[in-house]
């Protein structure tokens, strides 16, 4: 076992211990692992499967069903732009296009310098101050091109 997989086994083991006895614990476990690593390392799956008495395929199946869980690390910063109707009504598509041009990436991609990952999100509940964005977990309302540029400058 390499150094990293030993470390993963130990840390994932601690997370599994903390969720022992919880009803329907797989999503909370995956969230906790992602909070610890920024993604769910592949080496974690067999460990989770063994403890929950599931197959590795079942754990993978659950993980891949949900948009939130990552198999690979994201960029240093994650910029989520809302693509839903209320934001569309306020020019969200235009702002999203601007973001893609400005960063030179498509949805789900990370800039070459590893700084920013761009992701779509469907509704942040900021529909009365659209378009909306989530920057590293912080909400931003009324995002036009200028505000988006400021966000990008701010995190870079």
């Amino acid at each position, binding site marked *: 076992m390499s150094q990293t997989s030993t470390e993963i086994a130990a840390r994932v083991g601690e997370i599994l211990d903390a969720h022992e006895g919880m*009803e*329907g*614990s*797989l*999503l*909370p476990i*995956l*969230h906790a692992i992602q909070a610890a690593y920024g993604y769910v390392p592949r080496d974690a799956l067999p460990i989770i499967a063994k403890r*929950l008495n599931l197959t590795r395929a079942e754990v993978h*199946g*659950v993980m891949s*069903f*949900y*948009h*939130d*869980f990552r198999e690979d690390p994201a960029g240093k910063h994650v910029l989520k732009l809302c693509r*839903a*109707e*209320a*934001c*569309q*009504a*306020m020019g969200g598509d235009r702002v999203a296009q601007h973001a893609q041009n400005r960063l030179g990436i498509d949805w789900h991609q990370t800039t070459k310098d590893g700084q920013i990952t761009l992701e779509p*999100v*469907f*509704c*942040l*509940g*900021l*529909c*009365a*101050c*659209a378009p*909306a964005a*989530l920057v590293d*977990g*912080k*909400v*931003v*309302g*009324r995002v036009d091109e200028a505000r988006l540029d400021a966000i990008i400058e701010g995190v870079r």
Partner: protein
Amino acid sequence: MKLYVPRDAAARGLGADEVAAAILAEAAKRGLTVDLVRNGSRGMVWLEPLVEVATDAGRLAFGPMTVADVPALFADLAAHPKALGLTEALPWMAKQTRLTFARVGVIDPLSLADYESHGGLAGLRRALGMDSAAIVAEVTESGLRGRGGAGFPTGIKWKTVAEAKADRKYIVCNADEGDSGTFADRMLMEGDPFTLIEGMVIAGIGTGATKGFVYLRSEYPDAIEVMTAAVDIARKSGLLGASVLGSGKAFDMEIRTGAGAYVCGEETSLLNSLEGKRGIVRAKPPLPALQGFMGKPTVVNNVISLATIPVIFERGAAFYKDFGLGRSRGTIPLQIAGNVKFGGLFEVAFGLTLGEIVDHIGGGTATGRPVKAVQVGGPLGAYFPRALFDTPFGYEEFGAKEGLIGHAGLVIFDETADMLKQARFAMEFCAIESCGKCTPCRIGAVRGVETVDRIAKGDADAIPLLTDLCSTMKSGSLCALGGFTPYPVMSALTHFPDDFAPAMKEAAE
């Protein structure tokens, strides 16, 4: 000096944290001690960040505030450039009937003492003196229907669970508010979390369930933070635990975070997700009320349904039932959003017409252009043209016009909206979010995108195909995702046919 700066996500997204920090800095500079409360939002999103200052006459409102406006709060308040007068006297506030949202924006969300001094826990105390049948009867009598969108009578659901025999029962709160244009659940959880907790406790006592879950979407980090803190406080103060308020009756609950799947707002998919599985829809029957979470009888109710329970028990079913229209009883928190001048949350009895809501309360579009369409009820709701603005806001009334009220979100579009593009988006969204269990939804949505693209290229033969496909999806899908996606598509096609003939129109010109 006591000031209020909302901690609501919309207010924070518009700079409330910066304004709050500036207030504290300015006070420190002047050597003053201020009591700064981070309250919920009053719902006037166009005025956020809305700062309030407590005075002997009542709370004075200032907004939309910027950091530069802060120093003037420490001078003559009447002369402040952003002064709006008494909050309660503002037309937006004065015209509402706030029952579910009575405390939101008023109290400190995480102060149980503040909650109680504004009527909180009165409903639960009354319920603790009633037996299960009387609690369920009170809910049935109130006429409350599922505020998540399905409109199923809450009392009947509770009765089924109450009468089911099982060793364990559960209360699950559906806080997976994924519909665009809706934010009532978020505002309530961020602004008055104890109301939801109290409603869930009453549901537990009434049906014999001892454990509750709030399935809260991950897109709401602020709501997760507030709800988690509130549950902790409730447990420490005996509102949750082995003996609720010393009654000897047990009820406890957990906050669970979703993982970005829209379909998990569907109750059976939500239950699978809560059990740690893929969020695949279950076929019904069995009803979740009989075999829900872990196969046990489970009440699955929306945030607003559960948060309305305390006021029903505090004021009585008859009081609540007195508001409304036809079979839509009580009040509904309208969420007015998208391209709108005055956007936000407006709680009112059912029955206002769509036109009154859009033109009079919302004030028309933010861009000042004419309103072209209003999508009511989220991504699965129909697009209504101005011709249908006389439709009264009620479950049956919208159903009769081939629409739905859903979770009562309204997204307004101005005349620049392309309805073919909106129809395509509805299909695209369904394709992205389909759980994959049933064919009409999984395959139909993909074919739907292709068919709309054919129409966009001028292929008029594809129009009857799209209509046929929508009919198949509507009647053949297992849940509302595939089953209701035809609403936005068909309403766009029916009410805005010109947008579906661009290529042909260009050729004619």
